[in-house]
């Protein structure tokens, strides 16, 4: 089926075509503005953006991944994914959902790259294996490295979905046998938004896309390239079980009496104190729950190297920022004296130093990228 026109309608035109009134449209804009955390005056800005911008073409690549990010994306409740793909973006290539296969799929991608050069958003799910000339991930006979390089060249912005694209995730865990590499190490000179997590929360993914297509620019990012809106707080700081932590009330082993009372999971290995994510606030699956609420500690899936941090997911973290002023500091002090704890602390310090250096560099890059996008 050939398109009947190359002129892309604006959201406003689409809504009107679907039978919505101007009044409905303004209500929608108010809702989006509120969702994006804007003041009431932001409504006009949203309306303006929605009346001017046509549906943004999106190419969504899949490399070394398990498709949990795509699955999480289709779990989004607001906006719902049907509304996103029918009304907000033009999802021109995604191996998970697209009708066409083989040559026809490749042709769809190529068409978008040619007709919307410099306009499309590139989403990447998965890491890129760089060993052995990239033979560990080939699609259509081409290596992931080649495909990423070519598609990134004409992209307006790049989104890294999930921990695989952002930090390599499981296949990059020691000993990283395929040379699994996060995309920020391979793409230069493009605005890049990292949305880590294994997977990221569906509503967070939708929120990032909505921000991008609504405002035509990337959301404000933190020093390592994550949207501040969703990754500026530790899970620990927004955890509803935090009062138990402060009061020194802990689950000692799974399903004990304290677990049935919903006490803090720190002692059974919760990584909430060192994990930046929106789980405690946005929660999962339209706010149904999040790991800690369902009795298991956070495993830190949005943090780099979370597979390799610590001896086990059930080993308590010996020290973390802000520790020591809490009421149970003495309990933890004993643990911190252990050899493992010292080893981890050294590791953490080294990581922080590296992180700062890298962060400064990325911040500069990020600002340049944002300027370019504007």
């Amino acid at each position, binding site marked *: 089926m050939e398109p009947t026109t190359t002129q892309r309608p604006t959201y406003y035109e689409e809504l009107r075509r679907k039978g919505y009134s101007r009044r409905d449209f303004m209500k929608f804009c108010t809702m989006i503005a509120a969702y994006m955390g804007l003041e009431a005056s932001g409504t006009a800005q949203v309306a303006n953006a929605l009346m001017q911008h046509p549906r943004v073409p999106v190419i969504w690549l899949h490399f070394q991944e398990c498709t949990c990010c795509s699955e999480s994306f289709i779990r989004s409740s607001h906006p719902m994914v049907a509304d996103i793909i029918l009304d907000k973006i033009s999802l021109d290539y995604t191996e998970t959902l697209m009708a066409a296969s083989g040559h026809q799929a490749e042709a769809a991608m190529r068409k978008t790259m040619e007709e919307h050069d410099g306009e499309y958003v590139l989403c990447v799910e998965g890491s890129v294996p760089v060993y052995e000339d990239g033979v560990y991930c080939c699609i259509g006979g081409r290596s992931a490295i080649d495909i990423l390089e070519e598609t990134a060249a004409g992209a307006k912005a790049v989104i890294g979905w999930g921990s695989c694209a952002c930090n390599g995730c499981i296949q990059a865990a020691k000993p990283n046998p395929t040379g*699994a590499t996060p995309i920020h190490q391979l793409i230069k000179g493009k605005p890049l938004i990292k949305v880590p997590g294994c997977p990221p929360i569906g509503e967070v993914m939708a929120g990032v896309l909505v921000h991008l297509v609504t405002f035509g620019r990337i959301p404000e990012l933190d020093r390592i390239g994550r949207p501040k809106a969703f990754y500026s707080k530790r899970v620990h700081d927004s955890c509803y079980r935090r009062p138990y932590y402060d009061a020194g009330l802990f689950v000692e082993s*799974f399903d004990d009496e304290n677990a049935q009372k919903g006490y803090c999971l720190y002692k059974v290995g919760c990584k909430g104190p060192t994990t930046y994510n929106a789980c405690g606030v946005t929660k999962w699956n339209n706010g149904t729950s999040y790991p800690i609420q369902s009795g298991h500690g956070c495993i830190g899936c949005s943090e780099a190297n979370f597979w390799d941090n610590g001896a086990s997911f059930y080993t308590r973290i010996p020290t973390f920022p802000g520790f020591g002023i809490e009421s149970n500091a003495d309990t933890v002090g004993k643990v911190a004296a252990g050899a493992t704890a010292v080893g981890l602390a050294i590791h953490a310090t080294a990581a922080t130093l590296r992180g700062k250096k890298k962060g400064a560099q990325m911040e500069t890059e990020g600002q340049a990228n944002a300027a370019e996008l504007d």
Partner: protein
Amino acid sequence: MSQRIVVDPITRIEGHLRIEADIQDGKIIDAYSSGTMVRLIERILQGRDPRDAWAFVGRVCGVCTSVHSLASCRTVEDALDIVIPPNAELVRNLMFCTQYMHDHVVHFYHLHALDWVDVVDALNADPKRTSEIAQSISNWPKSSPGYFSDLKKRIKGFVDSGQLGIFTNGYWGHSAYKLPSEVNLIGLAHYLEALEWQKEIVKIHAIFGGKNPHPNYLVGGMACSIGLDDVSAINAERLSYVGDLLHQAKTFIEQVYIPDLLTIASYYPEWTTIGGGLGNFLSYGDLPVNGYRDASAYKFPAGAILNKDLSQVHEVDLRKEDEIKEFVHKSWYEYEGGDGVGLHPWQGETVLKYTGPKPPYENLNFDEKYSYLKTPRWKGHAMEVGPLARMLVGYARGREDFKEVVDRALAALKVPATALFSTLGRTAARGLETQLVKDWALDFYEQLLTNIRNGDTRMANTAKFDPQLWAQYAQGVGHSEAPRGALAHWIVIEDTKIKNYQLVVPTTWNASPRDPQGQRSAYESALVDNTPVADEEQPLELLRTIHSFDPCMACAVHLYDEKGQQVSRVQAL
């Protein structure tokens, strides 16, 4: 003269699959299935804490999320001789059923339906007539002429925009599409409704496991303690939420999925004679009702069927080293004993040796190795696994519940039992088992409530959670029936760490390359079994047969090693 076609990427699947097929006189006469991505998760597991394994292997796949975590917990519990409390078994069963209902509905509508439903032709539908058809096949309330009229308007606007998005370059108008426009419109309506529904059912995973995809599991049981008097635990509100979601799912499956499946199938009777393939079927069984160790009381019985002979079901033993073996004759790995031998997973070797062409490449060479999938065999036989295998094993075992749903569907479609051995049979079996699972889920839910009412609130057995209590050496095997078929993990634990971990997963059985005897596995075998290709430029029929298996390549290819060095080798006791 035959003509070689390449379909890569195969889309609407999980992962990276390439099919090359030879077409002659409009039929596939030969076919090759290749997995083109590896991650080597088994290698990464070595040296780690066995209690963490469920989280690692859970990341093998985010589509069949949770199934590897379940199999992994069972594997470690087998090695450490841990019996989990009945409530934990029930919660795991509920999560299992949730996964089935979600996965099968998403497969039918979002991964498979576009092979049968012509989205663009739906624009020719008459909304009034569409409404009449919809109301004649189901009580589902969203069926008014106005509803279909609005939808048609929305889709017309979408198509007129010139940006077809995920529908770009589909095979619209292909001669193999047979549905009336009105049924196409119903299919499209339910594509969108199923997209909305699927995010609801998985909330059961979020309630018990904290999130979906990738909910949390726990060796020894589940982490979601029951605490009726606490807001933080599984209490009356959480349980009611689960019950409500299960009833919603039952309604959706009964009123949308099954009527659509039977209606669409009725327009494609020729597909009951296409794509049958091997005729050998394998199921490990699952859904314990009397504890995981009592395999005789599983809802899904175990067994093997050979040569379509339903009069005999063979017993399968995962521990016997002469039953399941993996070969690397046509796989990019090498064995110390050469390419002719097969190894039981407890003796498994995973040594990668890529010998394929350097990318970019046009064709693979099938005289040599051509896939990252190993080739598993049961007693030397290539076996098909998945919904059809499960339904046939249950049917052949004489289980009344299986017979009832199968016979009813056959009668509705007016086809003989042999129609099951086909592309359409595979697709239908997936729906039929979903019918069973939706009711079983409610049974498990009631049993959980009964246990709690009777005062049993145990959710985890942590007696052996401390590694200091473990033997210096242990090995175990755990199995499950993943939505895509028989799944098993094998572990060896030494000094409280993982010494070896091997997975043999459903798509490895189905999508693997040939064995040393030249026997095809299920995909290749089904493709050469009467699958037509009317237009070589638009291999729609090939996709139908492949999609009927619901490929999951990330699961199938999880192995690896670096530069030819041996990364895992286990000696059996």
